[in-house]
């Protein structure tokens, strides 16, 4: 067991290293330099040097939506659902938060609270819709979710160039900056919001607790493992599936709020930053374990923030970061599959499904 465990950590790491170095050599650059630049771009070089406060703040604020979405996805994955609609749920959260930020005037703490609640409600609604399509309509959640992703994306684009356009100019660069009272409170002139980081950690702990210490979580897992027999055991499976989508949607909606009133402080068409899809990769890599989400999504956030400086400094396309993430996840799940196959060969007892 220890040998196979070692294999599926060492093997993917080796694959990633070799493939990235090969790619960079093919692109004609020194392979070490981009890695250093990614660290420099996200945390400073040396990491956390005195002038890097802004970068570190940005990295944390990219970590927040990825980690929140990942926490939500753990719930839907445990219920056996592929919530590809997570992108749309983030976007609808951002739209709802933007609506409150633009239209409501209230004392600052109340307004911030309202944007968060509105964001959660927006994401929840969009998640619930995927769930209803699935349970009442029998529409596969992958396609229902994808359709709602497209709807949400069209809606933001419409809002940004239509009703919420900046006076005089309709451009996809975004709406006007929201009133300052609605911003998530941040520290030291950076974008870092301790409130957002706190909510994210709470959400992750909450999801851990849900599956570790509650009957609800246990039943949800049962529904995910075997829906027909859970139903026969008297679990209202449809309600549990809807519950999973509601929890995931609300967390994704808060991620959208963090994007709208925390990071960008305005609404842009690409408000989700693709973080929902990235979170699916994070959860697959974390193998659905909540606390692993914290470091893995931080690593992904570093790549996302740091790789933007690659094109400026090295003339390497920033998508290198995405390639790295993809290779890492693919080689990890293949490594796991390989280890499981070998374990199954050595002992005939099947030790469960992987991936």
């Amino acid at each position, binding site marked *: 067991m220890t040998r196979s465990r070692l294999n599926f950590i060492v093997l993917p790491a080796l694959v990633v290293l070799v493939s990235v170095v090969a*790619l960079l050599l093919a*692109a004609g650059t020194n392979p070490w330099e981009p890695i250093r630049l990614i660290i420099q771009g996200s945390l400073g070089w040396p990491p956390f040097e005195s002038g890097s406060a802004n970068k570190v703040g940005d990295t944390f604020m990219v970590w927040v939506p990825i980690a929140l979405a990942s926490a939500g996805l753990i719930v839907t994955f445990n219920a056996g659902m*592929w919530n*590809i609609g997570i992108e749309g749920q983030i976007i609808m959260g951002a739209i709802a938060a933007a609506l409150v930020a633009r239209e409501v005037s209230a004392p600052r703490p109340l307004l911030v609270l309202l944007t968060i609640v509105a964001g959660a409600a927006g994401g929840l609604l969009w998640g619930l819709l995927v769930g209803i*399509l699935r349970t*009442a*309509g*029998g*529409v*596969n959640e*992958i*396609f*229902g979710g*994808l*359709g*709602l992703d*497209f*709807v949400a*994306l*069209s809606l933001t*684009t*419409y809002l940004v*160039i*239509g009703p919420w356009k900046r006076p005089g100019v*309709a451009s*996809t660069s975004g709406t006007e900056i929201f009133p300052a009272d609605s911003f998530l409170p941040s520290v030291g002139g950076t974008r870092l919001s301790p409130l957002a980081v706190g909510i994210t950690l709470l959400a992750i702990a909450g999801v851990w607790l849900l599956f570790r210490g509650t009957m609800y979580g246990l039943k949800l897992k049962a529904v995910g493992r075997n829906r027909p027999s859970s139903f026969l055991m008297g679990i209202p499976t449809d309600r549990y599936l809807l519950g999973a989508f509601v929890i995931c949607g609300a967390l994704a909606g808060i991620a959208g709020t963090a994007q709208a009133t925390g990071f960008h402080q305005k609404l842009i068409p690409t408000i989700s930053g693709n973080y929902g*899809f990235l979170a*699916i*990769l994070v959860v*697959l890599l974390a193998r659905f374990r909540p606390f692993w989400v914290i470091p893995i999504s931080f690593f992904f956030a570093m790549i996302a923030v740091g790789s933007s400086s690659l094109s400026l400094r090295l003339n390497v*396309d920033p*998508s*290198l*970061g*995405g*390639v790295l*993430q*993809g*290779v890492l*996840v*693919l080689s990890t*799940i*293949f490594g*796991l*599959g*390989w280890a*499981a*196959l070998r374990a199954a060969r050595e002992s005939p007892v099947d030790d469960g*499904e*992987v*991936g």
Partner: protein
Amino acid sequence: MSGFINALVDMFDTATIASIVAGASALLFATMGETISEKAGVINLSVDGSMMLAALAGFVVALQTGSVWLGFPAAAAVGMAAALVVAFGSIRLSLNQVAVGFVLFALCTELSRFLGDSYVGRPGEAVPAWDIPGLSSIPFFGRVLFQHNLIVYLAYVTVVATYLFMYRTRRGLELQGVGERPEAAHARGIAVNRLRYLYTALGGALIGIGGAAFTLDLKLGWSDRPTRNLGWIVLAIVIFGGWHPLRAAFGVLLFGALQAFALNLVPEFPNLAQVLPSIPFPAMILVLVIVNWKALLRWLDRYPFLRAILRSDPPGAIGSRFEVS
């Protein structure tokens, strides 16, 4: 309102219909590929990424060799390689097909951006136009059907060939058996997993050719993620088409018509110019949602004729793995 009517009237223009017929070629290839793969029981969810990477491969190979016809086999090889990764992961390693497909989608997309960066905006090769002698001079139909190029004709030939193969040959019956009842197929002496590898690879090759049809014919050249989201539409159309090649082909044409309609609306609503081109994507998926609505299906069950046309049932063993016990 009059804007809508104008746009609708423009749809019946000969040139518009001809452009829908020609524009469907890429998605027809990819949809046939995915239909074959899913019919054998393997969902290749990576289409959106692998089609894009294949599109890049086709463009680059055609550019380097100066021959557009070498681009297509290169793209087919890339699509096939991606499909084989999905097949290997799900058949040999018993991994979840959706997981492998999704990760591969993300990886191939980013890889196409990374490797294609230096090709953005460079002029490349294009499939030459070729009117079919004789047929192309028929009034209306000649313009609509026979004044395109070899790749467009080949796309429609592929549709008919897929249909004939699947429903009119013994090998096609085996393909269906492998996807519907692998145990029964196995009992009849069919090598289930070998056939699944074969048809997933074949499907991947067609998906790759679809990608190259974009960069070498429909949307010449390379830009950032040129076929973005079209792979997801392919997956949706396969379901919409009820895993039947001819119905899926109808779905592709319907999507093309929606796109043409959205484009026709742009001059009527210029302030929505940036939103309209994206409308066919949600529209197409919403059509899928309606067609799959349980209540509608129950209603259809009372009308066998309509049911046969509209109902779509997935292959029995889709997405599952088969092991000889």
